[in-house]
């Protein structure tokens, strides 16, 4: 095979030629095989059909929701009542004392000033939408005739949709919907509204310096404690629940990882070639590890949540079961690589078996074990998010709940940011601990 074994230069040359030809074939064949596989996947995954199924409007809603929020101004056309609320939520409804500054609610006319210079006026059953660069759109609804419009309905731009029952005007600054039942205006603004305080808090709409250094806003409480209480118990963003959920996720990872390590360590002795008393026991221990790993976190989660119900302990146990298998394998491999001389040395001083393990074996494997365990701690934080989504605990649960409603995307992005920060924090924490404990820095 190798060139050096060739007897003559001619033979050597022919061998070199075939070798290069084969290498050339491989460099061509591998990309070709990958390409062929992707072609198969293209049809197996129905990529063409994907274009029809994809809902790009969902993507637009999601992205715009993550950096902006909308305020609903709604007139009930049956009884003429006006309601202004953030995202249409009951908890975010303004009352007459604290309407946003861009709305003026009068007896007859409600005026909305938009960021782009336009304005919307709701005067009873008539709506006037002044769109900069386009002109005035005036529409009217009545119970008998439905919705009527001042424009030529045959020649409307694509951001206006009109029918006898409904008019929708969507611009970047606002969206107007007019039906017989209600007149609805969505006004888009940048940011996450009510993130700090809800509308019922006295600290709403006060700046940070006013709260920190200004006069007491709520006479019964000091500014800082009051602000903290209202922030912590914010009923829309639920900061205290989120903090608990994050803690639960870390707890699952912590309990699962270290619990698995504690259980796996003695079992690993039974599975290591140089410590196992009997071949049968060694084989049994190894098959046990393979089984625990093979069943996988998903199945463990399902099985355990049947017995223990949803919650963080189920998640922790699911991690524990899977990782006992992984740790058992890794630890027993580490044990097979220990240096026998140190054990002999300890034994020569008359140490009993347990002492031999404690002083001859453990010091050798602790750095390896610790670094494995800490690596797993970080990756299990991520798994705990996923397991939490299935078994119902921690930030994973909040995330899926927020996603299922399909409207609170700003909360989803908030949770995503928190999860990413949490995993990164655990990554650097475990790295720091590893350096501290193993290298003794």
């Amino acid at each position, binding site marked *: 095979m190798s060139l050096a074994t060739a007897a003559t230069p001619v033979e050597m040359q022919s061998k070199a030629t075939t070798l290069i030809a084969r290498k050339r074939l491989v460099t061509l064949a591998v990309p070709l095989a990958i390409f062929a596989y992707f072609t198969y996947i293209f049809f197996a995954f129905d990529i063409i059909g994907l274009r029809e*199924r994809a809902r790009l409007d969902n993507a637009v809603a999601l992205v715009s929701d993550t950096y902006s929020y909308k305020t609903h101004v709604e007139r009930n056309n049956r009884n003429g009542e006006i309601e202004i609320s953030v995202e249409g939520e009951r908890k975010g409804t303004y009352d007459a004392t604290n309407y946003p500054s861009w709305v003026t609610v009068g007896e007859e006319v409600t005026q909305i000033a938009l960021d782009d210079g336009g304005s919307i006026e709701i005067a009873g059953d008539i709506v006037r939408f002044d769109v900069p660069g386009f002109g005035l759109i005036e529409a009217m609804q009545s119970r008998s005739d439905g919705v009527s419009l001042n424009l030529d309905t045959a020649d409307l731009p694509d951001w206006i949709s009109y029918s006898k029952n409904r008019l929708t005007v969507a611009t970047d600054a606002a969206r107007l919907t007019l039906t017989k039942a209600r007149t609805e205006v969505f006004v888009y603004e940048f940011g996450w509204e009510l993130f700090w305080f809800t509308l019922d808090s006295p600290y709403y709409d006060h700046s940070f310096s006013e709260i920190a250094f200004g006069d007491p806003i709520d006479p019964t409480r000091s500014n800082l404690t009051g602000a903290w209480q209202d922030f912590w118990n914010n009923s829309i963003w639920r900061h205290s629940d989120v903090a608990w959920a994050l803690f639960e996720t870390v*707890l699952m990872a912590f309990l699962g990882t270290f*619990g698995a390590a504690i259980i796996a360590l003695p079992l690993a002795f039974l599975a290591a070639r140089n410590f196992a008393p009997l071949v049968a026991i060694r084989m049994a221990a190894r098959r046990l590890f393979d089984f625990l790993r093979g*069943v996988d976190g998903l*199945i463990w989660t399902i099985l355990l949540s049947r017995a*223990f119900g949803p919650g963080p302990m189920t998640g922790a146990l699911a991690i524990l079961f899977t990782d006992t298998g992984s740790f058992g394998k890794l630890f027993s491999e580490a044990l097979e690589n220990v240096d026998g001389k140190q054990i002999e040395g300890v034994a020569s001083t008359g140490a009993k078996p347990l002492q031999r393990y404690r002083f001859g074996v453990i010091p050798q494997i602790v750095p390896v074990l610790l670094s494995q365990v800490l690596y797993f701690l970080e990756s299990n934080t991520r798994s705990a998010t996923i397991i939490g989504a*299935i078994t119902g605990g921690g930030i994973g649960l909040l995330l899926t709940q927020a996603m299922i409603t399909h409207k609170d995307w700003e909360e989803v992005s908030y949770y995503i940011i928190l999860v990413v920060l949490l*995993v990164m924090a655990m990554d650097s924490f475990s790295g720091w601990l590893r350096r501290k404990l193993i290298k003794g820095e």
Partner: protein
Amino acid sequence: MADLTAASLDVTRAHYMALTRQRRLYGGLMLLVFVLLMAAGFGIANDRNAGGFLPGLPHIFDFPADVISEAWEKRANLPGHLLRALPALIETINIAAVATLLGALGAVLLSMLSTQGLAPWLRLIPVFRRMMDLMRAMPEIVIALVLIFILGGGPVPAAIAIAFHTVGALGKLFSEVNENADLKPLEGLASVGATWPQRMMLGLVPQVAPNWFSYALLRFEINIRASAILGFVGAGGIGYELKNAISWGKGKFDEAAAVFILLFLTIMVFDQLSSYVRNRMTYGAAK
């Protein structure tokens, strides 16, 4: 070194004993704190759980027993169920394979861009490193759920989600491999005027490809598990079948058992296969 009198030995010994005692004290304290943390954490987790640990313990085998007994009663159906779940299993494996391939390709590129000595733009190394950290920290389920919302259920969201995470995870490992590569072949290629892609392709890849392959194989095995889990939240494949069979409850447990068996066997087979291949690559064919 001269003063080796008995007195100085005693001093040294006393000093040593004091140090040992202090070490033991610290070690014991750390152990105590750790045990307390574990116990307290277990207590909290137990309280927050719907069912407690002790009441649940006797019932831990109830569900497996139900599944097994029903599957045993209807064991004649089992081959049929296994056959019917096979396409879903293939989809799960395909998701993992596509994600590993795409993720490895992305990781190769990012790892080259973020390794000292290989990167064409030195200033951007930290940027690419942070990018990999971010991709690694993103749990697959987050991306999968968002993409399911946009693209609808099916294998594509799962594949993209897993590939995204794989780029970050493999990128870090690949760049560690790259750091150990010999730079002399690259310099040689540069001296004859090779462009950056040529230098990478001809100078770097032959050195590191076996290690890359070994890590990618390990990742493939992890990704099969991940793709089964994502199926459970609606991304298709065997996880989805499992969810359907289980949420049906009694009466479809034979189907659930079939899916359990398939999933277990698949994970076992790929686990053993990848560790066999990786062992062969590290220690050679002889062992």
